[in-house]
């Protein structure tokens, strides 16, 4: 199964972060693939990606323009950076593009 992990973070870490995470995870579920997005927001790290999950992922999504914690987990992995607003609005399109990148 295709496996995408990532981190979402926004300035206040209150609304966009959980919204983007949920939208991406739902888009993954709809497509029958594994998507897990860690939220680095007002409550600290929520839905944390483990070292193992990070290293076994096909692709890492960075959904933020903020400073992020624990990026070393993804060392050597293919990363894509996306705008958090776009992730809320077009989660399906983003996941489709990720799948395309992984498969090609």
């Amino acid at each position: 199964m295709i496996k995408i992990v990532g981190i979402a973070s926004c300035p206040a870490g209150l609304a966009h972060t959980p919204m983007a995470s949920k939208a991406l995870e739902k888009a993954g579920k709809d497509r029958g693939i594994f998507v897990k997005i860690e939220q680095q927001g007002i409550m600290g790290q929520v839905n944390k990606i483990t070292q193992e999950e990070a290293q076994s992922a096909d692709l890492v999504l960075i959904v933020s323009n903020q400073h992020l914690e624990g990026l070393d987990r993804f060392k050597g992995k293919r990363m894509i950076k996306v705008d958090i607003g776009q992730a809320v609005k077009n989660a399906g399109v983003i996941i489709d593009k990720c799948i395309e990148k992984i498969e090609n």
Partner: protein
Amino acid sequence: MESTNEKEGKKMFSIEHVMMNVEAKSKEEVLKLISKKATELGITHNEELLYKAFLEREQESCTGMQDGIAIPHAKSDAVVQPSLIFVSLKNELEWESLDDKPINTIFALLAPNSNGCIEHLMMLSKLATKLLEDSFVTNVKNAKTANQVFGIVTEVF
């Protein structure tokens, strides 16, 4: 018996937090009205600082989402406890949004700087993710009274 979540939810959001048929000429005016309301409700002791916190967040990136809904938010020392204020506008306002549509429905999220009340913050986050559901958005937009809005929103908690 009420669950803890219901009780906590009431502290954070009550029918007094719902503003219906509000007239405003600009986003700034709406944020001022929300700051004033927050002062009346005892959510803040510093109306001016709260208003500034809203403006600062607006400058970071757009808080207009989709379908006429905006989620301005303030994370500030001026906020005493995490709260939600709902505003339904009579008119539509220009407000930078993800789908470029004007805004008429506003969920203002207020949070203190100290990450104390985790439970309340979780509720605010939960509400935000609810906005991804079409049925929730439709219900909120179709609500005609403060009572209806209160009912729909508190179901989320």
